[in-house]
C-alpha cells in the first residue's frame, strides 16, 4: 500500500472531527464452551466414586480447593476460569452485556484533535434521503461554549427510519479555533435502508365469510420475535384470528406461563402465516352489501430482536374481492324428491327483489348450453315463462315444468332471468344437482291355482306414476295365454 502513514498529515485542515457510533441495544454474551469443570470429573475416573471408600475420602480433599465464592483479590488464581461453580455454568450465559457492533441510534461526538481549544461550536446533524431532509439536532440556539483541547462533546440523536433507500447523515460544525475566522466542517455518513420484512396477503371468500391469509417474510439477518401482529379491520368489518388449537398439557402454571410458544421468524427468509376470519356487519340491514367495502383493513406488525429492540411496520390498506350488489335472488322452494327420466316434474321457485325499486316484468328460461347433447334438463312446454313485476323487497313465486333427458346425477342449471324493462340478464342465480333415476324393475308372473299351463304373451301397456307419500307406482296390463284362451291380467306394483 503506497502512502502509508500519510493519512495523519492530511488532517491539518480541521481541528475537529466527528466520530459516529451506532448505538443499538447491547446483547447478552453467549460463551460456547467456557471450559469449566468440576474437579471430580478431571482428577478421578468417572466410576471412582462408586467405591464407598473413595466416596468418603475424596470430597474432603477437594473441598479446600474448590471454593470459588471466597475470592481473595490478592490471590493470583484464575480458578473461576477453570472450576465449575454450578453445573448450569456450562450454558455460558452469565448475563454479561456486550456493546453492539452494528447500526442503531447514532451516538455522535466531536473530537478535538489538536491542541487548540475550540470556542463557540455550533453543531448540526441532519438526515437526508432522496425525498426529504430531517433535522435531528440543532444547537444554534444554545451553542457549545467551548471544547477544550483533546476534549469531547457527546450527543445522541435518535431517528426512526421510515423510508427506504440511501440515507446520508450530515454532521456539520461551525467553530472558531485559534484563528479569527469561523471554520465550517461537514462530514457525511452514508447508509442504506432496506425492507426488514415483506407481507403478502391472499383474500378468499367462502360463502359470506372472508378469509385473509397474511404471510410475513423476514429479510433481516436476525431472528424476529413477533411481539404483536394485529389486523385492524376497516369500518363495518370485524376480524378474528384463527389459530391452531393449543394442545399443550402443561400442568405447571409456571412452565405454562413462561413457556408460551414464541413466534420466531428465522433470519434470512423465514416465513410465518397468519389467518384471519373477517365478517362484514352493517348496522343498517337495508344497506346489506355496499360496493365500497373493498378495503378490509391494515396489518400492524410489531417485532423485537435482541434485548427487545423494537421494530414496527404498518401495511397499506388490504383490499378484498369486490362484492357486487345483489339485486335479485332465486331460491328453489319445492323440488320433487325423486326425478325419473323422461317424466316431467315441477319445480317451484321464489324470485326475491332485493332492491328498493320495482323490478320486472321478467322472462324466465333455461339457457341453452353448447349443444343439444349436453343438456340434461329441459323445460317441458313453453320455453319462456313470463313473470310480472316484483315489488321492492318482496318476492314472487313461479313454477317450472321440467323434464330430464339424461339419467344419473345431473345439474339443473342455466335458469336465466331477464328483466324486460332494464334489459338486464341474471344467470347463474341458482344451481341444483339432482339424481335422475331410471326405474328398472322385474315383474314376476306366478301361476295361480289352475292346472293349466300359462304362456306369457306380452306386456300390453303400462302406466307409471308417483305418489307423494307412497312413492312411485306402476300399473301393468299383460295378456297371458293358456292352452285355450288369452287372459288379460292386471297387476299393480309399488316400488319402495
Amino acid at each position, binding site marked *: 500500500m503506497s502512502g502509508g502513514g500519510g493519512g495523519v498529515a492530511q488532517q491539518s485542515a480541521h481541528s475537529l472531527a466527528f466520530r459516529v457510533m451506532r448505538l443499538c441495544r447491547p446483547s447478552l454474551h453467549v460463551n460456547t464452551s467456557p471450559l469449566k469443570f468440576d474437579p471430580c470429573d478431571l482428577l478421578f475416573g468417572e466410576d471412582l*466414586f462408586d467405591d464407598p471408600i473413595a466416596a468418603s475420602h475424596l470430597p474432603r480433599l477437594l473441598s479446600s480447593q474448590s471454593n470459588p465464592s471466597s475470592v481473595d483479590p490478592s490471590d493470583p488464581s484464575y480458578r473461576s476460569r477453570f472450576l*465449575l461453580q454450578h453445573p448450569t455454568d456450562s450454558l455460558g450465559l452469565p448475563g454479561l452485556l456486550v456493546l453492539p457492533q452494528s447500526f442503531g441510534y447514532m451516538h455522535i461526538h466531536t473530537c478535538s484533535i489538536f491542541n487548540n481549544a475550540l470556542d463557540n461550536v455550533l453543531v448540526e446533524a441532519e438526515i437526508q434521503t432522496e425525498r426529504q431532509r430531517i433535522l435531528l439536532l440543532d444547537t444554534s440556539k444554545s451553542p457549545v461554549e467551548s471544547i477544550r483541547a483533546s476534549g469531547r462533546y457527546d450527543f445522541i440523536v435518535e431517528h426512526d427510519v421510515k423510508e427506504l433507500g440511501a440515507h446520508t447523515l450530515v454532521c456539520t460544525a461551525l467553530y472558531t479555533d485559534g484563528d479569527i475566522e469561523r471554520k465550517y466542517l461537514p462530514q457525511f455518513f452514508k447508509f442504506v435502508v432496506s425492507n426488514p420484512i415483506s407481507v403478502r396477503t391472499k383474500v378468499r371468500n367462502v360463502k359470506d365469510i372472508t378469509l385473509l391469509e397474511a404471510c410475513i417474510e423476514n429479510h433481516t439477518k436476525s431472528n424476529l420475535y413477533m411481539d404483536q401482529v394485529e389486523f385492524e379491520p376497516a369500518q363495518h368489518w370485524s376480524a378474528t384470528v384463527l389459530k391452531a388449537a393449543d394442545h399443550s398439557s402443561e400442568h405447571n402454571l409456571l412452565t405454562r406461563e413462561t413457556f408460551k410458544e414464541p413466534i420466531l421468524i428465522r433470519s434470512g427468509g423465514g416465513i410465518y402465516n397468519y389467518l384471519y376470519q373477517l365478517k362484514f356487519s352493517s348496522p343498517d340491514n337495508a344497506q346489506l352489501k355496499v360496493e365500497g367495502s373493498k378495503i378490509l383493513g391494515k396489518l400492524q406488525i410489531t417485532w423485537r430482536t435482541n*434485548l427487545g429492540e423494537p421494530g414496527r411496520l404498518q401495511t397499506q390498506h388490504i383490499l378484498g374481492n369486490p362484492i357486487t350488489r345483489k339485486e335479485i335472488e332465486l331460491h328453489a322452494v319445492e323440488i320433487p324428491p325423486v326425478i325419473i327420466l323422461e317424466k316431467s316434474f315441477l319445480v317451484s321457485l321464489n324470485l326475491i327483489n332485493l332492491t328498493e325499486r320495482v323490478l320486472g316484468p321478467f322472462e324466465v328460461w333455461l339457457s341453452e348450453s353448447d349443444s343439444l347433447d349436453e343438456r340434461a334438463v329441459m323445460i317441458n312446454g313453453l320455453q319462456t315463462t313470463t313473470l310480472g313485476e316484483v315489488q321492492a323487497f318482496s318476492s314472487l313465486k313461479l313454477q317450472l315444468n321440467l323434464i330430464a333427458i339424461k339419467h344419473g346425477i345431473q345439474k339443473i342449471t342455466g335458469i336465466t332471468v331477464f328483466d324486460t324493462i332494464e334489459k338486464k340478464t341474471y344467470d347463474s342465480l341458482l344451481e341444483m344437482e339432482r339424481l335422475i333415476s331410471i326405474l328398472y324393475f322385474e315383474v314376476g308372473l306366478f301361476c295361480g291355482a289352475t292346472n293349466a299351463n300359462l304362456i306369457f304373451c306380452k306386456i300390453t301397456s303400462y302406466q307409471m306414476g308417483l305418489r307423494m307419500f307412497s312413492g312411485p307406482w306402476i300399473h301393468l296390463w299383460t295378456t297371458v295365454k293358456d292352452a285355450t284362451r288369452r287372459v288379460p291380467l292386471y297387476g299393480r306394483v309399488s316400488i319402495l
Partner: protein
Amino acid sequence: MDMPESPPPQPANSSPITTAAADATDDPLSSPYVSLNSHCHELSTLQDLACRGAWRTILDKVARSRSLSLLSKPHEHLIYLTFNLLSLIKLRRYSDAQQELQTLDDDLDSKQYLFESYPDHYPNHKAGSMVPFALRWLHAHLPLTLGDRQLSLDRLYSLLHFIRDKKLPQNRDSISEVSLTLWKKRETFVVNTIISYHLSQKEFKVCLALLKAEISKNEDPLLVSQLGYVQMQYGDLDGAKRSFEAVEKMVVGSESGDVRLKNLVSRNKALMYLVEKDYISAVREYEECMERDESDFVAINNKAICLMYLRDLSDSIKVLESALERVPTVALNETLVVNLCSMYELAYVNHADVKKTLSTWIARVAPDDFDTSFIISKMHRYDHLPSCLEMVRQKFPRKSLQTVHLACVFLTTSLSTWKASNGEASETDCANT
C-alpha cells in the same frame, strides 16, 4: 505430599471409630485416597497450575513426566492425557488436541480403560471405568473447534444417553449416593452444554424446549434466570419478566441469605430496567450488587455499559479500569475487555496507544488461555485506515470524499462497525457535495 487426613487407627479396645470408611481401610496411610498425590503422581500440582491458568506449564509438565516415565499406572496416564488435552484446547491449539486424542482408542468404553483389566496394578479395586468424565466431554467437544459442529452435537447427545441409560438407572446398592449425585450433576452439565451449542446458532426453540425439560425436573433459580436471558435475547420481554419474577419468588422464599442469589435477583432487575432504557435505575441495582460482593464482575461490566448509554463515557471507562486494577483475577474476562476497547475507540482519537498499553498489561498478568486476538484485530483496523484512504484517493481522484470514505470503511472494517475517519473532509470536498 499432603498429610493423611483421617486419624490413625485406635487400639482395639477403645471406642469404635465413627467413619465407616476407616473401618474398611486397615491402614489409612496406605489408602490411595489419602491425598491427591497418592492417587496420582503430582496431581495436586497439576490442579494448582490449572487454577492459575498456567496451561503451558501443564503441557511442559506432562511432556516431561511422559519422557521421564514418571507415570506408572494406567489411570495416571489417562489423567495426564486429560490435562494435556484440556490445556491444548484452552490454548486454542485444536489440531494438536486432535492428535493427542487420536492416541486413545476411539471407544472410551473399551476394556483397556477399566480397572478390572489390570489386576496387577489394582488388586482389590472396585470394577469400573478409569476414564475421567471430562475426557468424555472433551472428546465430544473437540469436533466443534475443528469445524464439525454436527459431530460434536451427535457425541454430546450420545453422551447424554449414556448417562441417562447406563449410569442414572443403577440402583442404590451398587453405587454410593455420592456417585449418583455426581452423575446427576454431569447430566445437567451435558444438557447445558447442548443448550449452549443451540443458543450460539440462535436455534431458540430447541433451547426453550431443553430448558423447559430441565426446569420441570429441578426449578433452579440460576437456570430460570438463564431462561430469562434466552427470552431477552430473542426479544420476548414479557416472558423474560415472568421468568425473573419467578426467580425472585424462589430466592426470597428460600431465605438462604446467599449473596450470590441476591445479586442474581438484582442483576435480573437491572436488565429489565435496561431494556426499558431506565439506565439510572439499572446503575443503582448494579451498585447494590457491587456493595454486597465487590467481585461481581457481571455487575461491574453491565454497570459500565449503562453508564455509556447515559453518555457518561469517561465514567464507564473508569469503572472497567478500576475493576481490572482491584480484582484482576475475576475482572480479566474477554467480554469485559472487548467492551473497554469499544469505549476507548469512541473516547480517544489516538485509541491505538491506549489499547497497546492495555494489551501489554494483559500480556503480563493474564492466564495463558486469555484470548487477545480481538484486541489486536481491532487495533489494526484503524491503523490501516489512513493508508487505505490514500490508496483509494489515488485510484479515484475525482470522486468526492464520502465515496472514498465508504470504500475505505468497506475495505477495512467489517461492515458492522462504522466509524468516521478524522478530518478528511475539507472545504473543497464540501463544495463537491
